[in-house]
């Protein structure tokens, strides 16, 4: 019996294809961020003094607060994926996750505003170019992901909820690793 005449087989086929595409997407994101972060570490080793001087102008407290915000958002995203969650609870959790994502963006933009004034100083080497590239690329993912969470909250189909929340957790994982690498090491 082929998938077209058996709706269950068709659903299984579709589910398997979706899962494969999801993990291809997850790994392409992790590969891209991995390359950026390794590049940041290598340049940091070459320009150690410049990177140490530049880090004095960063605010690890704000970054720590942003870690809490993103983890809380991830918790809300996890609540949205529970199979027994009602439609209302699923929607509220997705909207909560999105709003916390926007809170992350607001805090990060405030942090950028305090760093922009010193970013052009040549004594900091390539630090701020790489810092804005790596954290900015992550920030764009947060903005995009938060909008998609809101769109999915409007019509929360299980497949879409699983897709965006998995990607949201990946964005969370990237930030957890990025924080000590960029701000401390």
């Amino acid at each position, binding site marked *: 019996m082929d998938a077209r005449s058996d709706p269950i087989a068709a659903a299984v086929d579709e589910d398997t294809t979706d899962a494969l595409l999801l993990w291809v997407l*997850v790994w392409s994101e992790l590969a891209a961020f*991995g390359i950026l*972060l390794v590049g940041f570490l290598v340049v940091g080793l070459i320009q150690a003094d410049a990177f140490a001087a530049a880090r004095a102008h960063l605010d690890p407290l704000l970054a720590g607060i942003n870690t809490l915000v993103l983890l809380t958002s*991830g*918790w809300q995203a996890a609540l949205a*994926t529970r199979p027994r969650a009602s439609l209302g609870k699923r929607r509220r959790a997705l909207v909560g996750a999105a709003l916390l994502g926007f809170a992350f963006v607001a805090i990060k933009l405030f942090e950028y505003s305090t760093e922009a004034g010193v970013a052009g100083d040549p004594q900091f080497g390539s630090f701020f170019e790489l810092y804005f590239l790596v954290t900015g690329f992550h920030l764009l993912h947060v903005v995009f992901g938060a909008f998609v969470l809101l769109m999915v909250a409007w019509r929360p189909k299980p497949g879409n909820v699983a897709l965006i929340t998995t990607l949201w*957790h990946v964005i969370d994982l990237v930030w*957890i690793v990025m924080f*000590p690498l960029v701000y*401390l090491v």
Partner: protein
Amino acid sequence: MTDHNPRQLFKIWLLLAMVVISGMALMAIAGPTPLVIAVLLGLAIIKCRFVALDFMGLRGAPSALRLGLLTWPAALVLAAAAKLLLGTALFS
């Protein structure tokens, strides 16, 4: 997709928040010494483990998928630790 109930997810979130706050407190008290940075790198691995296994729901996933995802933060944290050691050896 997680199998946890809301109470379990809340406990995991609380644990993660305590790990983050502990790390921030350690940084504020001791400053960014190599030992503190090493501890914070270890805490990052712990946070990633909880997010991947409990929030993403990979605890019951195939081991290749689970281990593959946990290898990513571990590899980067090891690279960061190597950079820290190398930097300390070269510039101290």
